[in-house]
């Protein structure tokens, strides 16, 4: 099966700034592919070159077998696009926007079921300017689905949404994939990439620094799991160091962090604490996340 997107050596320069530098990747049909990185890393420039909205200074992109620069209008018949910075006239109504955009495509689906699916049925007669941020984003997704696209681009879909709306949006994206569509999304939320994407490309300063499934990326770190708890009594650290899975123990005040690997870590720690009659509370585990992967690869924290 041919990949939905093939990008080779993509390069885009703004003045002195190399926004996208030798970026290469493939997006497989039917997957949710995420590009994550801090703001300004080059995500939007990359996605807009692939959509044919920006002209790259070098490299190739092949999207659904088409060249986005040469076949831009034809390509946009087959893709759905949600842009990071776009809007509609304030006084256009939800149904009017759908009706209007449907007319821009040779082939479009009935938009009434889309309104239902995206939870906009009650708002169908509301003006765009009166919608909440989440409602606007859902309308933009509806617009991106009007032409029944094989491939849909979502650029910073959940930026500016509250956690609840963000989770609802994730369900929507999974739903889109379930209909057999390919999803290419960008985000600067590592958690979003981890929960939502089949494969993730981590981009920083215009370069892809890692590309794999979130699970493989995290495993590749060889990072340790952590068991964290608070002491209410006294602790002999040797008790914990004696557990085979434990690599080290840190104690700051009453907070204790036990580092280690292997499936027996948690039960080992709990059993040892029980056997030693150590009084503790708030015990929980922390797994490494994509956030840790980014930190390990770039030496920097992700910042919002």
């Amino acid at each position, binding site marked *: 099966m041919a990949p939905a997107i093939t990008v080779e050596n993509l390069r885009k320069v703004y003045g002195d700034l190399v926004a996208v530098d030798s970026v290469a990747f493939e997006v497989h049909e039917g997957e949710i592919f995420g590009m994550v990185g801090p703001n300004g890393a080059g995500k939007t420039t990359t996605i807009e070159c692939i959509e044919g909205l920006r002209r790259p200074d070098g490299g190739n992109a092949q999207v659904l077998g088409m060249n986005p620069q040469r076949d831009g*209008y*034809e390509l*946009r018949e087959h893709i759905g696009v949600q*842009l990071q910075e776009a809007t*509609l006239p304030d006084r256009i109504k939800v149904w*009017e926007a759908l009706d209007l955009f449907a*007319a*821009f495509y040779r082939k479009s689906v009935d938009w009434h079921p889309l309104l239902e699916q995206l939870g906009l049925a009650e708002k169908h007669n509301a003006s765009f300017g009166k919608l909440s941020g989440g409602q606007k984003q859902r309308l933009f997704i509806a617009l991106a689905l009007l032409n029944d696209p094989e491939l849909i681009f979502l650029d910073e879909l959940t930026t500016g949404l509250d956690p609840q709306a963000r989770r609802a949006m994730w369900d929507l994206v999974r739903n889109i994939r379930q209909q057999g569509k390919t999803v290419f999304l960008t985000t600067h939320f590592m958690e979003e990439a981890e929960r939502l994407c089949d494969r993730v490309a981590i981009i920083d300063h215009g370069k892809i620094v890692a590309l794999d499934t979130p699970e493989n990326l995290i495993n590749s770190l060889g990072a340790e799991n952590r068991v964290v708890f608070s002491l209410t009594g006294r602790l002999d650290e040797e008790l914990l160091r004696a557990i085979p899975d434990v690599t080290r123990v840190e104690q700051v005040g009453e907070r204790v962090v036990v580092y280690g690997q292997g499936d027996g870590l948690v039960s080992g720690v709990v059993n040892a604490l029980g056997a030693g009659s150590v009084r503790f509370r708030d015990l929980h585990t922390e797994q490494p996340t994509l956030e840790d992967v980014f930190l390990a690869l770039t030496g920097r924290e992700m910042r919002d």
Partner: protein
Amino acid sequence: MRGLWKLTLMEAKLFLREPFAAFFTLAFPLMMLFIFGSIYGNEPTPFFNGRGSVDVSVPRYMAMIIASVGMLSIAITLSVYRERGVLRRYRATPLRPQTILTATVLVNFAMTSLGIVLLVIAAKIIYNLHFDGNPLAVLAGFVLACLSFFSLGFIIAGLAPTARVAQVVGMVIFYPMLFLSGAGFPREAFPETIRSLSKFLPLTHVVTLLEGLWFGDLWGSHLTEVVVLGGMLIAGVIVATRTFRWE
């Protein structure tokens, strides 16, 4: 074609929902008609060379509507659409830029025509408006004036870096021109200096052309106006196509 039709229809609805544009195009000319009509009536007067005040004012108000649509409505709408990202959203579809430009011209032409039809009907019913020209000649003059002033709007939108600048530039050109061209104020009352300055304003040529055609002049006697407005149109199309930007 379906895209063009839907976009034109939608933009027409949005135009009518926008109080500022709808007011200046549809209501303001009627207000002027009623205010000055109630003061001066439409009896022939030597001040207007033996014509009635309303008869002379209607073709001039036509010029006013055309100018306000071109320099305010088109310039502001297009630059706001660009600045706010409406054009960006359109661009992510197969919609062509020429479809957007065509729809913009069509809808603004329709709204200008609507404003003028309302004005003429009201003037006819209330003040027994007189018309001595050839309807087709006036229609042709109206189309030429619209296109040349719309192109001015495209130039302002294309060259202005922000929507705010487009709005200010549009107003700064529009308001003085409205009064100094005779479109919004009787030019018979101008002193000589203003009258000579007035000759250099594009809107003066619209006023002269439409007023002349309204009272039965032939196109041949208005070659200056036709050349000026035609030149503006050509320059406008060239500048507008070169300066059109999606964002």
